[in-house]
């Protein structure tokens, strides 16, 4: 499998403050993104996600380390021609309409007006903004801006798409739409690198992830390998049994009238509870085994540091 993006030992510091003090943001980042996969880049605020992305795009110049895009140096024109980027909280030229906006970026790649127009129309359709193609960008909602930004990132049919918090500030419907587009991109053979906070979405679509904290990668690998299938606990909602009798079997989370929500950690205790409920002629309302989520992993790793 070809390597779409390879980052090796990336270091970057900034001078911060009135009396400039050097603050190290990236302390030796290394990661590899394989062609055709969706790669998730996670980390708490201030970890260095956006800085890493900007280094890859040539907006920031690292002190040390190398970046290669499809084997070419990341600042070369060939590398940039294969890349598309959607920044976090994008602002665009407000006075342009959606079509004019895409036309402008298209102008940087396509010499012929026909080609540009065709591409612009195609992308507007892809992101579902046909209705508002002639509306000025300053009238766009946050979600619409994200979508037109995604369209702009795809204007040159890039093989590597870099997305910085693409799902930020979107309502659930919006998030679903973007997720669907990302999955579609993968189907087309593109590689997607996205950084995000929203772990549920990452879990849903990413193949591999890297977790960055304090400027260092603390974990990296496929989701399957990182997040074990092990059942951490089971949540049981039951009624008809007295809490006193449940003591020692599990943690009592909440009580709503008759219903008790219990969190059970050991497997053998589950059998005891089920037997108890049957004995007291109670009722099991729900039974949910909880595996380790990415969130658990994440919080665990971050807390350790």
């Amino acid at each position, binding site marked *: 499998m070809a390597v779409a993006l390879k980052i090796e030992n990336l270091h970057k510091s*900034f001078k911060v403050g009135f009396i400039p003090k050097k603050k190290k943001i990236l302390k030796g980042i290394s990661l590899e993104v394989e062609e055709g996969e969706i790669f998730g880049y996670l980390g708490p605020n201030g970890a260095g996600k956006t800085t890493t992305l900007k280094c890859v795009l040539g907006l*920031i110049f690292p002190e040390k380390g190398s970046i290669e895009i499809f084997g070419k140096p990341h600042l070369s024109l060939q590398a940039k021609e294969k890349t598309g*980027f959607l920044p976090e*909280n994008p602002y665009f*030229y407000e006075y342009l309409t959606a079509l004019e906006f895409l036309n402008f970026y298209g102008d940087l790649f396509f010499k012929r007006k026909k080609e540009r127009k065709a591409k612009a129309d195609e992308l507007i359709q892809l992101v579902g903004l046909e209705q508002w193609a002639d509306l000025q960008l300053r009238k766009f909602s946050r979600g619409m801006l994200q979508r037109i930004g995604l369209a702009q990132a795809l204007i*040159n049919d890039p093989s590597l798409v870099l997305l910085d918090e693409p799902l930020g500030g979107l309502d659930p419907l919006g998030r679903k739409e973007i997720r669907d587009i990302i999955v579609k991109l993968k189907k087309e053979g593109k590689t997607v690198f996205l950084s995000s906070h929203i772990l549920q979405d990452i879990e849903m679509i990413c193949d591999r992830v890297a977790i960055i904290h304090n400027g260092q990668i603390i974990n990296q690998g496929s989701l399957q390998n990182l997040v074990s299938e092990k059942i951490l606990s089971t949540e049981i909602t039951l009624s008809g049994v007295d809490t006193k009798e449940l003591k020692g079997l599990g943690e009592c989370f909440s009580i709503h009238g008759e219903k008790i929500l219990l969190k059970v950690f050991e497997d053998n205790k589950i059998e005891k509870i089920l037997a108890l409920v049957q004995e007291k002629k109670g009722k099991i309302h729900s039974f949910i085994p909880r595996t380790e989520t990415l969130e658990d992993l994440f919080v665990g790793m971050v807390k350790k540091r």
Partner: protein
Amino acid sequence: MKIRAIASNTFKEAIRDRILYLLLFFAAVTIISSRILALLTVGDRVKIIKDVGLASLSLFGALMAIVMGTSLVHKEIDKKTIYTLLSKPIHRSQFILGKFFGLILTLFMMLLFMSLIFLALVFSYTFTIDWNLLLAIFLIFLELSLITSVAILFSCFSTPILSSIFSLSFYLIGHLSWGLETLIQKINPGPVKVLIQIIHLLLPDLENFNIKTEVVHNLPLPSHLFIFAPVYGFFFTLFCLTIASFIFRKRDFI
């Protein structure tokens, strides 16, 4: 070409900036009020109209150049529209050049409007077309292009307010270079004199683009000026834009 694309985009953005129209309004008011000023004077009336008119074109043109030049680059950085642009396969210097050409195109349009008002007023007095005025306006346009490049240079590393102040200072210093010359004559020869002479040569001499005196008083125009002034303007502009590109090259966009 990529520079052309950025230039036309910049033009579209700049031409919609309302400040320009405010300045245009004030320029029109000043030009028209020169007619009233002419009523109040003792000497030849048309001379004042021409003089004030050309001065307004130069001053308001410079203000427009400075306002646009300093805000446009900074606005892109501030609003982060620059991220998507620079991540595309373009050189940063192409960005600078594109901005520059877009701006001078806008300035050209604005100058055109102001000139029409001015020339109409002069025509209403003299009923002839003075071609020298057109030459004077051409030189003013060259001057404005130079100022634009200075403004763009400052806005590459400074906030709009500071850049505006610096650029405006350069405009004023550029017109007061005779003061520096007088100073040079009065200083004793030595390292200080040489230093000031060097500074004097490096600062833009905007009087090279000013033929108001000749035009207003109907003196013969210095023909060599029309060859050397554009050359001067071109190289000085190139100088500023090169420095701007150079600064822009390795700049981190946090």
